[in-house]
């Protein structure tokens, strides 16, 4: 029976000190620039506890309003949740929340879903048939014509 003893990798001549220990990174040809974080100090997944899916059913035009329970709870909520609750005294769309708080749409979906589950927000899912409803379309047409 032959034992295959793992051979130590051959040491390249002259590379006894690893590049990162040498402190002379300028000499290293394949020096890699680490990506500079772009703006946001917090990664989106930290705000959502790692969840990315959110409620797909929360369309970007979905209207959101803070409930009485939301106002009561506002001081106890974490930063982003509190921001959302404070912002939605008047109805706002999910897209407007994302824009005004400079938060990613996906993050807003997740947080709005949470806050709504806790009763802090009323979420009015858009009526799926509105866009093909003759009366609604006629109202939009009248409204646009009134723009002068």
């Amino acid at each position: 029976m032959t034992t295959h003893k793992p051979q130590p990798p051959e040491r390249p001549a002259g590379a006894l000190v690893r590049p990162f220990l040498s402190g002379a990174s300028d000499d290293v040809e394949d020096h890699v620039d680490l990506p500079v974080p772009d703006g946001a100090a917090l990664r989106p997944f930290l705000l959502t506890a790692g969840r990315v899916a959110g409620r797909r059913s929360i369309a970007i035009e979905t209207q959101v309003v803070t409930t009485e329970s939301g106002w009561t709870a506002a001081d106890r909520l974490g930063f982003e949740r509190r921001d959302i609750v404070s912002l939605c005294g008047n109805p706002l769309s999910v897209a407007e929340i994302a824009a005004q708080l400079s938060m990613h749409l996906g993050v807003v979906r997740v947080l709005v879903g949470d806050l709504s589950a806790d009763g802090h927000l009323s979420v009015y899912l858009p009526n799926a048939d509105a866009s093909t409803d003759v009366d609604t379309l006629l109202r939009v047409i009248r409204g646009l014509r009134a723009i002068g």
Partner: protein
Amino acid sequence: MVSAQSAEVGGPTRRRPPLPVKLVIAGGFGVGKTTTVGSISEISPLTTEADMTAASAGIDDVSKVPGKRTTTVAMDFGCITIDESLKLYLFGTPGQDRFGFMWDDLAIGAIGALVIVDSRRLDDCYPAVDYFERLGLPFVVAVNRFDGAVAHDLPSIRWALAIDEGIPLITFDARDKLSVRDALLVVLDQALAKARAAQSRA
């Protein structure tokens, strides 16, 4: 608490939200989508960032692509209050093709779409035209008159884009509020015709 728009559920709210309807403003990069939204929106166009890992969950699995960093995409939008119970949102699609994954978010449930074309770069609008054709969403192709000029006449543009005779092809000025309003009204006419046809079949 999640409630349907038609039913009030879950205690008192401060004010009843308006019914939101949306219209998509599409087209290639730099054709004037943001200008169009800004000309008619009652708020200055807002920008929302959507994160690819969130927006495309289940479609693009970024975690399986080594070294793939999160893509961030910006989307401009505005709104018009039609009356106190109806609000029209205008969503501009992100310009680049590679952000196509966002389009379902914008287009599903939309009234229709305005596809903006720069007559000097016609091929930029192919993805939008293809997409709305496949989705069956009413749309209108609108040539933005940059400096009052259109590089080709409309029949040539229609031929080049291979769009059906039934699809309106118009020119408009993205900087002019009334011109934008009229272009949106053409989209509404398309949507209304389709809705009436569906209603008479039912």
